[in-house]
């Protein structure tokens, strides 16, 4: 289904004139269904900010699953994207690191293992054996790869361990699934959980954090390798300097980020290691 939907969604783009797509004046920026996905007002403001700074038209392209954004990158339908660390490792050959968000002073985030607040017993992932477990997206690190890797480390078969699993295709909805009791547990992006905790504590209050994973490299902003160096640098500079002007600071505050930085590719090696455990790299 995902594949078909993805195909249908880029079909109109593919049919459009190649001349238009290649127009240098326009920058296409892909957004994965991270926490920002539902905050259309914030995205619109950020887009305007970018346009003002780089003097080009910026187009945000949103898709409902990570996979769709990945496809758009592979097919060179977008120039830049904010993607999860796990897809980044997948797409290392196609994209290069543009900037990494700084969160809590570090370019890191974690996975939180959450359970419904009514569940006062569960103390670790292993105790959820046979229960209903919700995943975020098949290409999410904290919402899919990390918990499965953890099980594998404990010599469990992630495919058999839970009684039932399902995907919500968004961390925000993952929290809802656990809060409502539909899922007995989920591994959620710490950045999403913390931000929601700030904005809507009545939702996060209905969940309880059981485990915190080691730190992973924060989902990066990437550029397609086909993007020319001047535009790449222009974009990078724009992101890095956001923290230096009031408008950028206001946007960062709404994004719940400290700013953007340049990090080494090695930041994402732990993800590659986990992928290796599943034979993916």
């Amino acid at each position, binding site marked *: 289904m995902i594949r078909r939907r993805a195909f249908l969604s880029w079909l109109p783009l593919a049919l459009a004139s190649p001349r238009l797509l290649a127009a240098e004046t326009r920058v296409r920026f892909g957004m994965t269904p991270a926490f920002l996905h539902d905050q259309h007002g914030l995205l619109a403001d950020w887009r305007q900010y970018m346009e003002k700074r780089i003097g080009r038209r910026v187009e945000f392209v949103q898709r409902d699953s990570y996979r769709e954004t990945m496809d758009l990158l592979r097919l060179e339908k977008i120039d830049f994207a904010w993607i999860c660390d796990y897809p980044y490792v997948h797409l290392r050959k196609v994209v290069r690191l543009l900037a990494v968000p700084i969160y809590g002073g570090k370019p890191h985030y974690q996975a939180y293992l959450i359970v*419904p607040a009514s569940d006062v017993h569960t103390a670790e992932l292993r105790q959820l054996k046979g229960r209903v477990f*919700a995943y975020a997206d098949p290409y999410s690190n904290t919402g899919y790869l990390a918990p499965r890797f953890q099980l594998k480390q404990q010599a469990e078969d992630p495919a058999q361990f839970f*009684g039932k699993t399902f995907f919500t*295709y968004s961390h925000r*909805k993952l929290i809802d*699934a656990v809060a*409502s009791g*539909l899922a007995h547990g989920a591994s959620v992006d710490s950045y999403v959980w913390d931000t929601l905790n700030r904005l809507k504590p009545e939702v996060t209050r209905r969940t309880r954090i059981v485990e915190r994973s080691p730190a992973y490299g924060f989902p990066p902003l990437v550029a397609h390798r086909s993007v020319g160096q001047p535009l790449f640098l222009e974009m990078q500079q724009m992101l890095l300097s956001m923290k230096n002007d009031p408008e950028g600071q206001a946007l960062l505050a709404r994004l719940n980020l400290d700013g953007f930085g340049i990090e080494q590719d090695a930041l994402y090696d732990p993800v590659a290691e986990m992928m290796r455990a599943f034979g993916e790299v």
Partner: protein
Amino acid sequence: MMRAIFNLSFRYKMPLWGSFLIVTTAIIISATLLFRAYADLKVDLLRNAASQGNTLAISLFKALLHDDVWRAYEIITAPFHGATPEFPVQAETLLVVNRTRHVYVSTRPEEIPMLTPLARIAPDYALLEASWNLRDGHTRVIEPEGAGRIFVVTPIVEESAEVGTLIQVFSKSVLIPRFLESADRAAMMAGLVLTILLPINWYWGRRTAEPLATVADSMESLARGEPQPLPAHVYAYHDEVGRLFESYNRTAEQLRAKASLEQEVLRSERLAAIGRLAAGIAHEVNNPLAGMLTAIDTLKQRADLDPKVLKTVGLVERGLNQIADAVRALLVEAKVQSRSLAPEDVSDVQTLLHAQIARKGLVFEWRVNMASQVSLPASLFRQVLINLVLNAIQAAPEGGHAGVVVSVFPDRLTLDVRNEGPPLSDELLQHLFEPFMTTRESGHGLGLWVTYQIVRQLGGHIRAENEDAAVRFFVQLPLENAA
């Protein structure tokens, strides 16, 4: 108890019975309407639920086919945002079960978690499972016996590929608040109708019962022998009750006439007996009296009588004469040959009594309807007229009203004498015409006795009665030439 109710007066029984009927009718109609409203409510609910079920099932098909739990959850929770005017009754729960009837997803995951076998959710659900019967792909309402819930079950099917079943669960109690709402309205309407009808019923019941009760009371007075006529205004209609009134009044009138006739007969018999007694005594007295008076007369013819003796004889003679006068007065002799009564006779009496009337300052009205001679003995009639008018003058208060009406008809003459004096007591009326009956210090009380005797001897009637503020003597004398 029942007997006590049936013994109640119609005054209460009729309105009570009417009220009972009205209240019963109101209750039955309200209950019927309510029952109907409840049924309609349920039909509405289930129709809405079925239509919602069909809509949801279409979206759910894809979610189930792709095992997209979260999407299925979003679909079934979407309609769960409180009651709307189009869908006033909310389902308690929506849940989707898979083909093996395990919970795929439910709107209340905490109580009804995924993978729970349908029958293990709650006893009601076990009953649902037991009565599971979905042969075709249509929405079905399952209301298991003994369950507190109604299930609207929609198969999630596309082109005969069934992937699961949507179950909308309604608590039977969700209908109750809505039902109470209609019940409130019905009660208000019933109350309104009752507040209008009950007073009307009470008024009509009383109106119908009142005359009946009056007749019943009057019938009792009839049995006691004191028939009282019913006032005409109590019931002026000619239905059964009206006829009862009329026939009662007729009977009462007849009984009264009979009773008064009996009294009249008694009185005249008594008077006749007195008359006979008086006549007998008079005869017994008269013979020796005549002898004694003759003897005294003879004695007085003698010249050698001592003046003392003469004085004594005179004394005896005067006494005997007084006895003779009294006896003569008692012994009314009507068989006196007299000329016929003429209008002048009445005028004479008028003239004769004028002074007395004037002395008392009375307003005395004479109405004489007599054109010519009438075949009645003039002297006797004059005596009757004088007696009655004198009586009226004496009875009337100073400056009061009195009057006499003399009317001549072909077959009779009537004499009607009234005065404004105090009414006569019943006791007095009983013995009015007996000799020596008088209410006054003066007078010997023979006036009415004599009048009565004359009237009777002339073949007529006399009666006295209290009428309004007057006392009335009414005399009727038959005229010979009428025959």
